[in-house]
């Protein structure tokens, strides 16, 4: 019962303390706000970049052209063989007529050329989607070995370069986010440490009048939590409204339809959750560590 009362009182005291130490609170909150805004921007940016690269990766396929004299049975057999390959996600048959139709729509030159020909010179094919584009080459080589396969193409060299560039972009953005989170943690940690440093005489007095370490620590820990959470309010508002506005203004994509943005909901809510978690957790840890330092009397 006593411990619960101490707990509840600490909560109340921490709340009061945020306002009574107004200038110190403002300093911590401002620092938290600014750094969390940066973190938010970094998360929004990197998530979108990764989203685009994932989408582009999904567009990468292997096209398996069949021999001209392949029968229907052979084609079916090949399809079941391809689909049993581990890395294969999906196989779709695309007949030579479909190709012809697509090509004729693509350009007028092709249109005239193809319509001039009596027979369709194109080949029947399978469009193969893979699970992991990094193994695109291996999978295509494997398919190549099967009978009645004339060729399995995946855009060779270009694709490999593209995938490795995506990998680099992904890694760089993740590193940026992690680095920013660390910097944020460090900055919030330091301002809260200073806040408590300027109040170390209070901690000393509390000890002198016979307050247990638990009862000294708790209000400071709650205060750290409050400061962290208050500091994340503005970044969250900016994240939610900023992103929704940017999304509608840009019509959901950058430059072209290929570079589509992540839909605002529930994306912004997750980002907000991450921001408040960073603020709160770092606030608690920072004040806990700072107080503990002055309790070693």
């Amino acid at each position: 019962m006593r411990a619960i009362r101490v707990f509840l009182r600490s909560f109340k005291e921490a709340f009061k303390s945020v306002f009574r130490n107004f200038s110190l609170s403002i300093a911590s909150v401002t620092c938290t706000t600014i750094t969390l805004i940066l973190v938010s921007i970094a998360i929004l940016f990197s998530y979108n970049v990764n989203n685009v690269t994932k989408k582009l990766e999904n567009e990468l396929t292997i096209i398996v052209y069949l021999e001209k004299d392949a029968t229907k049975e052979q084609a079916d057999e090949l399809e079941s063989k391809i689909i049993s390959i581990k890395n294969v996600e999906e196989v779709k048959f695309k007949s030579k007529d479909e190709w012809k139709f697509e090509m004729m729509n693509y350009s007028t030159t092709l249109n005239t050329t193809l319509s001039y020909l009596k027979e369709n010179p194109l080949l029947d094919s399978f469009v193969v989607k893979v699970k992991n584009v990094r193994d695109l080459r291996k999978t295509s080589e494997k398919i190549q070995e099967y009978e009645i396969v004339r060729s399995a193409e995946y855009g060779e060299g270009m694709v490999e370069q593209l995938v490795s560039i995506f990998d680099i972009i992904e890694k760089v953005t993740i590193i940026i986010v992690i680095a920013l989170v660390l910097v944020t943690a460090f900055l919030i940690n330091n301002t809260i440490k200073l806040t408590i440093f300027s109040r170390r005489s209070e901690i000393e007095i509390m000890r002198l009048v016979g307050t247990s370490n638990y009862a000294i620590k708790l209000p400071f820990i709650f205060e750290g939590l409050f400061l962290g959470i208050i500091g994340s309010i503005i970044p969250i508002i900016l994240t939610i409204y900023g992103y929704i506005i940017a999304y509608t203004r840009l019509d959901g994509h950058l430059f072209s339809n290929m570079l589509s943005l992540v839909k605002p909901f529930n994306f912004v809510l997750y980002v907000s959750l991450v921001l408040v978690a960073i603020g709160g957790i770092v606030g608690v840890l920072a004040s806990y560590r700072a107080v503990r330092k002055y309790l070693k009397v």
Partner: protein
Amino acid sequence: MKLIELKNIYKTYPNGVTALADVNLQIAKGEFVFVIGPTGCGKSTLMKLLYREEKPTKGNVLVGGIKVERLRNRKVYKLRKKIGVIFQNYRLLPKKTVYENVAFPLSSDGIKDSEIRPKVLKALERVGLKEKIKSFPDELSGGEQQRVCIARAIVNEPKLLLCDEPTGNLDPKVSREIMDLIESINKKLGTTIIMVTHDAQIVNRMKKRVISIDNGVITKDIMKGKYKENESN
């Protein structure tokens, strides 16, 4: 009945300064004791040993049956709850009101509000500050702040009150008022009082037990002593 017992106390600080050497001392319940001596003689160290701000290098400190030097850091608060301490610089919590300051030792201990309130009001009444309940420390005069400090020290009704130069920053008139207050606490509540002071006037007027320390050694311990006993004594 003795409340405090120091046995063969030695205290050497890490920088090599010996603050106390072979100090033996007994103080009974309800006594009023002055501790005097030149600056740096070790009297503050003596006080700090009693509320475990410092540990003796050698020897035993017994306060109300507690072996103080054996207390672990985490448990020190249990001793301090039983001891009231008054400081020269008051040491009030600056962001808390007079009421909250006096209530602090109780509220941080998880005692019910309904039990805290009468105790705090009684303590504030005793020091004559009942009407300043909602003031903050920086709105009070030095004498008033010292009264708040005293109220905080006695709110738990401790058996022992340690006073470290409580009148050091106050003018003679206010000092006298504070001393009267402390004496009344000694008489009415039976609280044992140990006071470090430089104020010869106070010591001479009150005629209590006086312990003189010089260079870390107790040089005199006289029952109705004065600040500067004649060499002929």
